[in-house]
């Protein structure tokens, strides 16, 4: 693997994290991140759609004229989202029930269309898959952090395991939509201050 290809995998994990740096895919990040399990399930479903659509977009890059590329990419992404919906139902109805309407909304996650447009449509299958995997893992990392913070504060549990004593009064707001914005703001603050400290050290 060349250094450039490796870089395209590493960058989305931290330096160009799709959520914490590029602020992409906010709809599922805010809506489904109220528990660790929901976050992971949404993260994995998004990773599947990202990788499959990246692969197909890359394979078809020479036969799709640029004038109709957006329509074609959206069609490809919608196909894999529909497939993910059936596959999740086949694997676990419980997970399908928990994610509700948000599986279908992966179609409009601009992170996936952005990956297809900016990278997969210009690179070979291998490179497109590696980059999409990096973006997907970066997304899972971000949505997992959100889910962990919100579940711990909002429910007093981590992955449904209690982390506080019985006297802990859950901050219900963290499970509600407002809590999503609080948690995102908090994590952006932490993420950016770490980034700045690392930059200072490098300089």
């Amino acid at each position: 693997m060349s250094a450039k290809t490796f870089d395209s995998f590493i960058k989305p994990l931290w330096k160009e994290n799709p959520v914490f740096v590029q602020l992409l895919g906010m709809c599922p990040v805010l809506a489904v991140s109220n528990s660790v399990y929901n976050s992971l399930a949404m993260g994995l479903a998004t990773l599947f759609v990202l990788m499959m659509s990246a692969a197909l977009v890359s394979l078809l890059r020479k036969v799709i004229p640029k004038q109709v590329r957006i329509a074609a990419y959206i069609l490809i992404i919608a196909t894999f989202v529909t497939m993910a919906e059936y596959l999740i139902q086949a694997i676990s109805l419980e997970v399908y029930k928990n994610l509700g309407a948000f599986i279908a909304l992966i179609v409009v996650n601009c992170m996936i269309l952005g990956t297809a447009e900016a990278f997969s449509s210009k690179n070979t299958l291998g490179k497109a898959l590696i980059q999409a995997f990096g973006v997907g893992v970066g997304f899972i990392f971000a949505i997992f952090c959100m889910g962990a913070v919100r579940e711990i504060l909002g429910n007093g549990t981590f992955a449904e395991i209690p982390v506080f004593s019985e006297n802990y009064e859950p901050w219900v707001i963290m499970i509600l939509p407002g809590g999503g914005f609080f948690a995102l703001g908090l994590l952006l603050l932490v993420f950016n201050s770490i980034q700045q400290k690392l930059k200072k050290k490098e300089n």
Partner: protein
Amino acid sequence: MSTEHVKGPSTFVMVRALAGVATLSGLLIVLVYQLTFPIIKINKAEFLKASIFKVLDGTKDFQKFVNKDGKLEKIPNEQETPDAYFACYDDSGKLIGFAIQAAGMGFADVIKVLYGYSIEKEAIVGHLVLETKETPGLGDKIEKDPQFLKNFDELDVKVTDDKKSLVNLIQTVKKGEKTEKWQIDTITGATITSKAIGRILHESTKEKIPVIQQNLQNLMPPRAN
């Protein structure tokens, strides 16, 4: 000044590309649907079966019935019907109650629930959500909120002496205002969804509980296997 005309792809090429992608998409979706459909069907049946045992304590076996002109008729458990009554039996074969499916519009989409009716208590003693697309973290409180679930410890659905209607129809009230056993306290932050559950149960019990009571005499003897 001369302008150079750059020729793009022909209409045919563009239409061919989109038609090709659409055909491929269609094939992939149909293929995955065909492959997963039997598994999803089994999953749904297993989930429903597990829910029947959960929704009415003490259930060890069940039998499906349908309403035919006011009479409950036994049908094979495997037979699909949207409007089934699941008679629940304990380990001695005694009929202890019914699990009933009901559905109605929630905040986002149709909510399908299963509720347990206890013959002894003449009350709803549990409910489970089978299908929902309500907002995760809000709408799904109808399954998790302990205060809301308390409504179903013994939700009164007694029938009148002539067994033709309920003495009191199920009502939904604001949180903390429940004073009667046939009332459901809503959930703050998920009012629409909890009200929807109240409405679904109101409609379903109004129609189905009297039918069960009218047929009870014929169903009470232990079931012959």
